[in-house]
């Protein structure tokens, strides 16, 4: 990024001339992202909808990406800037790795993303906010970690699970009731899919699983073996199970005990 600033500033976000007015309803926005840790790693999942005001801009947008081999990044908010930020972030991590011959620490990566968000601050003031969620496997403590951000670049580490985007309140509520620390990888993915369905249930901007077109959430799993995007058919099987269960109880699984 520093090299780009010197040699090709036009490639960097945050250097553009400002217009005026609120553009938030005129460009596509991505909606809900959830992340949760499980013993052995961390999982990130995102719905597939992008909205433009009341219009559905895209049904199958992807908002969860590998940042490098051991981390994942996803964004909620303005899709154009979000995708650009993710791309620049990926290039930065790879570039550092190649120049230095070593990867950045997980905290180093998280801080770098902070700087990128801050570069987008003028746009955020106009309603074109990008709020990413970053998660990765930390080899120093052999566990998954989650970092959330605010539009000014503030970086906060989260324990266990977190969610960003318009449906995040509902997703976080669902996660609170369903999440356990000792979930297996598959169970953790199921919990996250349930939370995304709950978010779609109550937030019009979040897309639920599209059963007709077979469009399901993107799920990325980061473990000591690296980033792996769950294959479409594995996600489909979990979504189908959750969906058929909701035929019996539309609000999803009930918490098992009240104590």
């Amino acid at each position, binding site marked *: 990024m520093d090299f780009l600033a010197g040699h090709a500033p036009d490639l960097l976000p945050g250097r553009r001339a400002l217009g005026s007015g609120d553009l938030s309803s005129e460009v596509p926005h991505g909606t809900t992202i959830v992340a949760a840790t499980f013993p052995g790693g961390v999982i990130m999942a995102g719905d597939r909808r992008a909205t433009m005001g009341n219009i559905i801009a895209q049904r199958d947008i992807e908002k969860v990406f590998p940042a490098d081999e051991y981390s994942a990044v996803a964004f909620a908010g303005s899709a154009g800037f979000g995708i650009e930020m993710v791309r620049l972030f990926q290039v930065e991590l790879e570039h550092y790795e*190649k120049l230095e011959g070593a990867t950045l620490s997980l905290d180093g990566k998280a801080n770098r993303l902070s700087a990128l968000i801050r570069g987008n601050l003028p746009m955020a003031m106009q309603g074109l906010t990008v709020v990413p969620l970053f998660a990765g496997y930390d080899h120093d403590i052999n566990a998954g970690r989650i970092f959330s951000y605010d539009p000014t670049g503030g970086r906060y580490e989260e324990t266990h699970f977190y969610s960003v985007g318009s449906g995040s309140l509902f997703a976080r509520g669902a996660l609170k009731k369903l999440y356990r620390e000792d979930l297996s990888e598959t169970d953790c993915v199921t919990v996250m899919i349930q939370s995304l369905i709950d978010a779609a249930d109550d937030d019009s901007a979040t897309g639920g699983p599209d059963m007709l077109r077979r469009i399901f959430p993107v799920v990325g799993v980061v473990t000591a073996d690296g980033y792996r995007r769950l294959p479409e058919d594995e996600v489909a099987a979990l979504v189908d199970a959750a969906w058929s269960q909701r035929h019996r109880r539309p609000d999803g699984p009930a918490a098992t005990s009240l104590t």
Partner: protein
Amino acid sequence: MSVPFYVSPEQLMRDRADFARKGIAKGRSAIALQYADGILFVAENRSPALHKVAEIYDRMAFAAVGRYNEFENLRIAGVRLADMRGYSYDRRDVTGRALANAYAQTLGAIFSSGGEKPLEVEILVAEIGAAPADDQVYRLTYDGSIADVQGYAVMGGPADQVADYIGEHYSEGISLAGALRLAVDALGHDGTEVRQLTPDQLEVAVLDRTRTQVRKFKRISEETLARILSESRPAEEATEPADAGEKTDTAETGASDGDTPVAPPADDAPIAPPEDPDDNRPL
């Protein structure tokens, strides 16, 4: 008024070339070798931290011999060029040809400008394609001249002797273990005495087209290297005959399809390495 010394341009260039060649020949050799699933790089390098082989981009790697500070600068410039192109266009738009051209321009400009000393480096830019036939290896010398290499390339140190050894034993579509064995043996045949190199003296990396990741470059660790080498030759004598069998095979295939590897340029005059170890010598 004193009359300035007249030196003919031919002499000037010859002197500069000799200077660069001598510097490069003082180091140890590096080899790039095409095998069935990609391109293998083997360099004799006692330093675990100062690399002679490095990743440039998804399907591209860089290997160099000569002065470390000089080729390290070239490597960084290459990574920057590749990453910037990939970011502003697309990952597929970063090509080995463009990178080799950029290197050739830089090396050529420095060689012919009177003010700077020529760079004492020789570099390889290698790119793997979808099939072995699409692989490209460019060899660039200190003066900016560029050659498209087929099969294998050797740079630095007594390059001609090492290349001769590979030429005798190389066959197209060789396996990774076979290629590794051949390269390590070739590096040992660089003088009158045959040396047996150990894994800690070697730097090994591959561009492997079977890797599922987008980035195909991978370093081979010392342990993995030791394992592969011990498998390909469990006991010194026991496998000699097997090697000989392979040799006849290679001779046949090489002759039948007439695609014998191109030897490095003849002007790469070998200069014997100095007898005494020199701490300050190029890698």
